[in-house]
């Protein structure tokens, strides 16, 4: 007779690292009190990139839904913020409402897009993004093709405006990270990753495919909408061809691929790396983009599990308790 087995989600080291990460996240709220405003603005940019990376990873890394059209929600979130401020909603409340509206847009699009598989899904999401960009460009009230500024924030002193935007962005980032964590912690976490690996095999084990895909799709829509609205709050001006641009999908793909697709920590690492590369090399224009592509290809060929795998393979414990470990009971 063998021992009884029990499932453990975390050990002592994992609990300590989890608490440290949460404490670090909360401590980041103090940044505006100790750093220059340009640092605060840059950290806001980093947070929006991180949100996008985490959301794309939720879709592609966990759900196997490779989207090249998440810019639809980024643009929709930004333009919904413009629309709401034009209707006398205060700017920061508009950002929150725009994020929720992006989630609603995802709910509406899900029945259409989730019917598609693989390449069809990727192309379908891109088509939706392009269609939305065209609709916005045709609407003169939203600035047409020339772009539009966010009103309502110019009455706030620049230092405080940047701090408020940063706090809201950090709040959204932590919220999204917490939602993804909870998703993976729950029983649905393993089911979601099973769908990614093999949809038919997952269904043959009792996993409900469509409700889980729907949940991921809507969460990613909400998160990308929030990222778009906060990008607008950070830059104060948008144009349809840039905010609905496919480059956002390329950036998300880069961050997730380089960081480590299908891992919790990978996209965070990827977003930081991408932010630094953008900061150091963006002035090189086309060569910078070529360099990004080359790096992504190199990672896909030589380190397909991303940068995080280098640390993960060496750590004797998981940083966050999102996996399972069997231990003999007693």
């Amino acid at each position, binding site marked *: *007779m*063998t021992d*009884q*087995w029990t*499932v453990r989600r975390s050990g002592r080291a994992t609990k300590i690292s989890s608490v440290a990460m949460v404490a670090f996240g909360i401590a980041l709220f103090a940044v505006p009190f100790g750093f220059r405003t340009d640092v605060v603005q840059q950290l806001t940019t980093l947070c929006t990139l991180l949100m996008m990376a985490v959301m794309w990873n939720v879709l592609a890394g966990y759900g196997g839904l490779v989207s090249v059209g998440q810019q639809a929600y980024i643009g929709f979130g930004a333009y919904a913020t413009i629309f709401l401020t034009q209707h006398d909603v205060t700017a920061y409340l508009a950002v929150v409402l725009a994020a929720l509206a992006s989630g609603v847009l995802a709910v509406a699009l899900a029945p259409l897009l989730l019917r598609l598989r693989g390449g069809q899904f990727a192309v379908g999401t891109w088509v939706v993004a392009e269609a939305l960009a065209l609709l916005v460009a045709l609407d003169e009230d939203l600035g047409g093709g020339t772009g539009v500024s966010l009103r309502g924030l110019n009455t706030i002193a620049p230092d405080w405006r940047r701090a408020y935007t940063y706090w809201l962005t950090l709040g959204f980032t932590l919220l999204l990270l917490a939602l993804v964590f909870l998703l993976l912690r729950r*029983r649905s976490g*393993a*089911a979601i*990753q*099973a769908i990614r*690996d*093999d949809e*038919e*095999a*997952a*269904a*043959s*084990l*009792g*996993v*409900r*495919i469509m409700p889980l895909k729907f949940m991921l799709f809507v969460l990613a829509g909400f998160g990308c909408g929030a990222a778009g609205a906060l990008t607008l709050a950070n830059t104060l001006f948008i144009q349809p061809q840039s905010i609905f641009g496919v480059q956002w999908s390329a950036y998300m793909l880069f961050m997730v691929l380089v960081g480590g697709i*299908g891992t919790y920590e990978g996209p965070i690492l990827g977003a930081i790396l991408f932010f630094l590369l953008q900061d150091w090399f963006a002035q090189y224009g086309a060569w910078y983009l070529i360099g990004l592509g080359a790096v992504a290809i190199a990672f896909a060929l030589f380190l397909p599990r991303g940068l995080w795998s280098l640390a993960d393979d060496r750590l004797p414990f998981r940083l966050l308790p999102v*996996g*399972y*470990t*069997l231990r003999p009971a007693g």
Partner: protein
Amino acid sequence: MTLLRVENVEARHGLLQAVRGVTFGVTEGEILALIGANGAGKTTLLRTVAGAHPLSGGLISYDGSYLTGVPAHRRVRRGIAYVPEGRRLFPEFTVEENLLVAGRRARSGRWNLTTVLEAFPALQPLRGRLASRLSGGQQQATAIARALMTNPRLLLIDEVSLGLSPKAVEEVYACMTVLRESGTTVILVEQDLGRALSTAGRVICLLEGRIALDAKTEGLTRDEVVTAYFGFHQARPA
């Protein structure tokens, strides 16, 4: 008691009709082997019962109710588990994670992590290993153990020994003893006729989508099997 009833079932792959008017029943606790040449319709029939392939005609009833329109995940909740061809483990999951995915909404029953690891002791030292790093035999054992975690009454196993070394086949067929002892009803698709006939109590041979033979394995002659398998009488040596 008849657990599964397949009545005049038809299934297609586009214009190709893979299963043509197949009718048979399976009683509780029975081990049934589906045999036949490549393209005979065995896998399609098994997938149709599992809900992984659409039914184009006929009816399938399980435990007294029809399965028409019931999606695969609901069939699992009713007690039908499916081990697909090629094992289809989740490669990025460890053995234990593969088992836990199946156990997350399992029916109540005798199978849980402890009993499964007890029944498959070879998996105990491998529980932390990624599924992609297992040998073929270990993968098949994990796939069967994973299906058992759903506490099935009817277990469908496709291509039990395909692509496995003789030693791995031995290991996998040791699992069949566990299944027989647990009283689980099993339909297995097997290319190895010797194995199929020695394991199952009954055999159905498909030929071009139709049943060419449905008989108890006990007393079945080699000639009868060969005739059904190839669709012609073997010439006897003079």
